[in-house]
């Protein structure tokens, strides 16, 4: 390890918190998705760091799965964004607060 594992965890948690903040605070649908991306990345950083800490490859393999998952998630969610935008002509989340099918 080039740095103490704690420092890496601190970096990852800062990134995660920034992503979480984006999800909670921003009202733009695109920005919320970007926040989700940031959080996923932060967890990827922890996995790679753990992989380097314990000298095992499993963490890196998990990151690959994480990336596959993210790309699937992004493709679906962006398709949903386009769909929602077509219905309401906006991507402000406050426009989607009524629960109708």
């Amino acid at each position, binding site marked *: 390890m080039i740095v103490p594992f704690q420092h890496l965890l601190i970096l990852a948690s800062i*990134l995660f918190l920034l992503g979480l903040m984006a999800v909670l605070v921003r009202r733009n649908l695109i920005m919320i998705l970007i926040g989700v991306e940031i959080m996923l990345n932060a967890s990827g950083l922890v996995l790679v760091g753990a992989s*380097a800490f314990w000298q095992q490859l499993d963490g890196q393999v998990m990151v690959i799965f994480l990336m596959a998952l*993210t790309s699937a998630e992004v493709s679906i969610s962006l398709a949903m964004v386009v769909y929602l935008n*077509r219905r309401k002509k906006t991507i402000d989340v406050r426009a989607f607060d009524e629960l109708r099918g």
Partner: protein
Amino acid sequence: MATLLFYILGAVAVAATAMAVTRRNPVHAVIYLVNSFFALALIFYLLGAPMVAALEVIIYAGAIMVLFLFIIMMLELSPGEDADRQGPVPLQWLPVLLLGAAILGCTLLLLQLDPAAGQQLPRWYASPRDFGYTLFHEYALAVEIVSFQLLFAAVGAFYVGRAAGTKEPLGGER
């Protein structure tokens, strides 16, 4: 050396991410985020995961963010709408230039360090061969499951896109 690089890149990643989540304009956010992903990719490289670093650039910066950019452009979230509310022009883009320059400098440093990987860079280094071996031997089932997940995602995206294309939205019928 590598330790110092790690802290620089970590600072760059945090700064770029912070800029990204506070931008009003989604395209600017995407640019800062790409910066942050670069910094993260270099950190992965420093941590001995070159494959993950390359895939981070290819998949995150090259595909996912491009997809975001595509959707932002397609929905015509126009750039001019809040041009007046932002600060003076040089201040507005100085951060991205600084962050980009920092990342570029670190990259060049890393590229020149690479021939001496044995001495300078981490002792623990996952070569692509080891990586592929682990991935396809120990996690073969997981690979299959993930590939199915990707297939379902493709079908789902296609379905949502098709429903949006038809006259009557399918969501309205159910």
